[in-house]
């Protein structure tokens, strides 16, 4: 039994074995804070990847963005949706296809993405309510638990034990990860964010989504934290023994929304989730 506890450095050392994102997606992620990116060059590069282009365009044409025309090229998507939004759609399309399924008994790959996509949809609607950047919220929602995929891919046997531990004690998976592995998906997510050069905004959201009260966690962490809980409560991942995590009173108060807004949020989240998952999980 390889039951030794892992450390953050153990996780970092395995990251090179992970599948890499398409070069152009790395380039997009790394250039997230630059304003002088040559858009036409990037659009051309993305267009060389046909599967990626097709998924991106289907997302762009979904009712999520309510376009009156149907976009048929990446360049067109940029014209109608803007560079930021298109960049996020490309990232979403690339990341959801990046990790291989299998290897870890008990880990439901599809359910993982159902939860992540639903959180992305919910975070986007929440961001609109809060007048926060919707593209950041969508991508952060999609990637908030990405550390789980890192752990599942790099340490499948240990992760299977964590899943078994969770079932046995009916605790939160986060607690089971810490008890069995010694590191949790937040640590692993931060390591990957570093490795893939995510922006600081994204790093803070991934690092703070279970602890939005921590100093410096940022507002996006509060949005993702609440979106995560809402999606568990709406049962969108359809996991039999799912658990709603405790909602931070600080994050809940920071959003300060009333019941009418939440009911509308639930409705919109369910609708958008259906549509996005049809594209990304096809």
């Amino acid at each position, binding site marked *: 039994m390889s039951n030794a506890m892992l450390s953050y450095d153990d996780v970092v050392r395995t990251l090179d074995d992970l599948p890499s994102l398409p070069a152009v997606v790395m380039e997009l992620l790394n250039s997230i804070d630059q304003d002088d990116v040559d858009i036409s060059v990037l659009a051309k590069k993305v267009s060389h990847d046909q599967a990626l282009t097709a998924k991106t365009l289907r997302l762009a044409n979904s*009712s999520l963005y309510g376009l009156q025309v149907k976009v048929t090229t990446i360049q067109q998507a940029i014209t109608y949706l803007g560079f930021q939004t298109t960049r996020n759609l490309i990232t979403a399309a690339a990341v959801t296809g990046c990790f291989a399924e299998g290897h870890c008994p008990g880990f439901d790959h599809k359910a993982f993405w159902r939860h992540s996509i639903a959180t992305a949809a919910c975070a986007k609607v929440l961001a609109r309510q809060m007048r926060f950047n919707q593209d950041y919220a969508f991508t952060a929602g999609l990637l908030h638990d990405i550390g789980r995929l890192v752990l599942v891919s790099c340490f499948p046997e240990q992760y299977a034990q964590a899943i078994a531990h969770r079932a046995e004690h009916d605790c939160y998976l986060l607690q089971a990860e810490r008890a069995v592995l010694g590191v949790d998906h937040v640590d692993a997510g931060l390591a990957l964010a570093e490795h893939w050069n995510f922006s600081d905004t994204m790093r803070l959201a991934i690092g703070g989504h279970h602890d939005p009260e921590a100093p410096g966690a940022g507002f996006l962490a509060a949005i993702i934290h609440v979106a995560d809980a809402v999606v568990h409560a709406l049962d969108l991942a359809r996991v039999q023994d799912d658990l*709603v995590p405790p909602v931070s009173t600080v994050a809940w108060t920071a959003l300060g929304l009333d019941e009418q807004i939440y009911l509308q949020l639930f409705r919109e989240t369910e609708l958008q989730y259906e549509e996005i998952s049809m594209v990304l999980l096809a």
Partner: protein
Amino acid sequence: MGGNYHQLSLAEVRPGMVLSDVLLDVQGNVLLPQGTVLTDAMLALMPRHGIAILPIVRDEVTPEAAAATLQHHQARLAQLFRKNDPDSGSDWATATLRRFVTDFRLGAEETPEHE
């Protein structure tokens, strides 16, 4: 179809609901015939055709079926929130979320959900 239909906004329409009337777009072209069982894919296309309200057949819900649905939702919510103590003062945000989702599942909706 008698008068047994209601106009629902797109946000309220769920897959599995049935059109009580032919559905026309703004130009008057037939989009979907009467009696169509709506799917996610169809609903996703509605905004592009400028459709915001749809005529939907009213479900004949027997009291037994309604009670069963209610019970199903209540049981599921109790399971999902099994770590939350609604009376705990410190965990009030989770309790509030629970109350909102309960209202969403049990209060607002009069027809049983289609799985």
